[in-house]
């Protein structure tokens, strides 16, 4: 277990006080009750999203996304020269992704050292973004994408994909299309789109079949899926229906992201005045 020598840590055996909270009866989510934030079940009801590009002045491109209470920011550096030059780099560029959670982002305190879950998210982000980039136009270069999750309130990977592709577009990296992410959580016979943290981690009291989460990364103009990840236990038909729902969710998000990008470009390079 790697130790963090840079910080004065609390005692090794510290525990989250939430473990000792007595759970009030009936807190377990009724699978057919309304959602806590007023959105609908079984409908493609994504949280309204706030996006802004160009926040970090040092980075080539950056983006910030807020969906409900989930807040993340992404910075893109590059194209830069690669340090290692092996044969593959001669033909096309290399994409490096890194996704980190701030220790205060989740209800349980995380650590600064990258756990295996963070590495997993970074890998999935990489797989989702790679098909969209024209890496063959950047030989011998490296493009770095760093996502930092400031607050985790559910469907973090989906929003990270959206934020990263927006940051890449803001950086002027050539892409085939924007990549949008959407996730759902299946609970028995009903599903919720864009789940919040509580909805994602609640285990329904009925040890039901058909429980799980699904995240899809989608390229809307090309109608291609660049990333797919699911866990839990679901029937194959539910999985297929879930993928279709996520694609619909991505289409809903597309105009908002396009508008934010257009606004950022207009701000950076205002069109010539008519006079």
């Amino acid at each position, binding site marked *: 277990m790697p130790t963090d020598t840079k910080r004065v840590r609390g005692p090794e055996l510290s525990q989250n006080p939430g*473990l000792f909270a007595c759970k009030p009866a009936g807190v377990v989510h009724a699978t057919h009750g309304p959602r806590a934030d007023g959105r609908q079940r079984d409908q493609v009801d994504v949280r309204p999203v706030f996006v802004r590009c160009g926040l970090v002045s040092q980075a080539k491109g950056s983006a910030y996304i807020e969906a409900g209470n989930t807040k993340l920011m992404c910075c893109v550096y590059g194209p830069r020269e690669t340090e290692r030059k092996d044969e593959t780099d001669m033909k096309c560029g290399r994409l490096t992704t890194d996704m980190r959670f701030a220790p205060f982002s989740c209800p349980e305190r995380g650590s600064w050292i990258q756990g295996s879950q963070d590495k997993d998210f970074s890998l*999935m982000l990489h797989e989702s973004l790679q098909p969209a980039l024209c890496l063959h136009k950047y030989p011998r270069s490296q493009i770095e994408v760093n996502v930092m999750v400031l607050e985790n309130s559910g469907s973090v990977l989906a929003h990270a994909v959206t934020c990263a592709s927006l940051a890449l577009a803001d950086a002027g990296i050539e892409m085939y299309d924007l990549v949008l992410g959407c996730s759902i959580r299946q609970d028995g016979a009903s599903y919720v789109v864009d789940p919040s943290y509580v909805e994602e981690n609640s285990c329904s009291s009925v040890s039901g079949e058909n429980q799980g989460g699904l995240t899809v990364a989608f390229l809307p103009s090309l109608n291609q*899926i660049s990333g*797919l*990840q699911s*866990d839990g*236990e*679901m029937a194959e038909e539910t999985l297929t229906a879930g993928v*279709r729902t996520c694609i619909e969710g991505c289409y809903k998000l597309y105009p908002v992201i396009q508008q934010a990008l257009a606004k950022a470009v207009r701000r950076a390079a205002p069109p010539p005045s008519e006079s």
Partner: protein
Amino acid sequence: MAAVQVSEAEKVYILHGIRDDLRVDGRGCEDYRHMEIETDVVSNTDGSAKVTLGHTAVLVGIKAEIGKPRPMVPDEGYLEFFVDCSANATPEFEGRGGEELGTELSNTLYKVFNNKHSVDLKSLCISTGEHCWVLYVDVLLLQCDGNLYDAISVAIKAALFNTKIPRVHISADDEGGKEIELSDDPYDCMRLNVENVPCIVTLCKVGHRHVVDATLQEKACSVASLIISVTHKGMVTCTRKVGGGSLDPESIFEMTEAGKRVGKALHAPLMKLLQQEESLGKKHQKVGFLG
């Protein structure tokens, strides 16, 4: 994964063959290579299995240890996975080279088993909140010739079937604390029910069709693959798209359906084989590592 260099002409050859449902070694698109499974190969473990799928060889050892249950679920035990890509497999894995692949494989295994039904975790509890069985599943890659996920999942299922967890007896000692006693009889043990343990099927998209159990050459011709883990009832516990390309939604639907079909069909013969091997008991000839 260890990559092979494939020329353009070879790629075209493989692509055209797969288009006509004929692969380089004569299999159909949904056929597996010759698979050999042997359990109880390592005597120091509580359960072990070795699977050879074509030229891919995987060895799984399971050790059961007594530990403290997780704070959120005090009445369940848990499994810990670790995949080691040994330098025997390819020289690329020397030192820390295989670490990335190893973490990717173990993260996927955590996701595959992250549900209530695969392994009955409540049976691994010894005393609520204090002691539970922790099963350390250690996977060792001996040879790498494509399709690691499938071989690893079959090996884990076989090793879990073979696992014999000793029975423990909790007694209260003088000061009111709990004392754990291991049963004296070495054959008095608990077995796990592996009916619901899923198997992973990897489908590679080559051209417009998909293939199951791709060799390294076929993998070099594909841009993306889908990993799907299926239980014997046809429930999907984990899916993941790997690779640097993108897939059409229609292909994904086709591949999940094919994966479910192939995965479901894998379980019955596997259980039969495992039970047959078990019933031979002392009589079965150990093939070991040189067979």
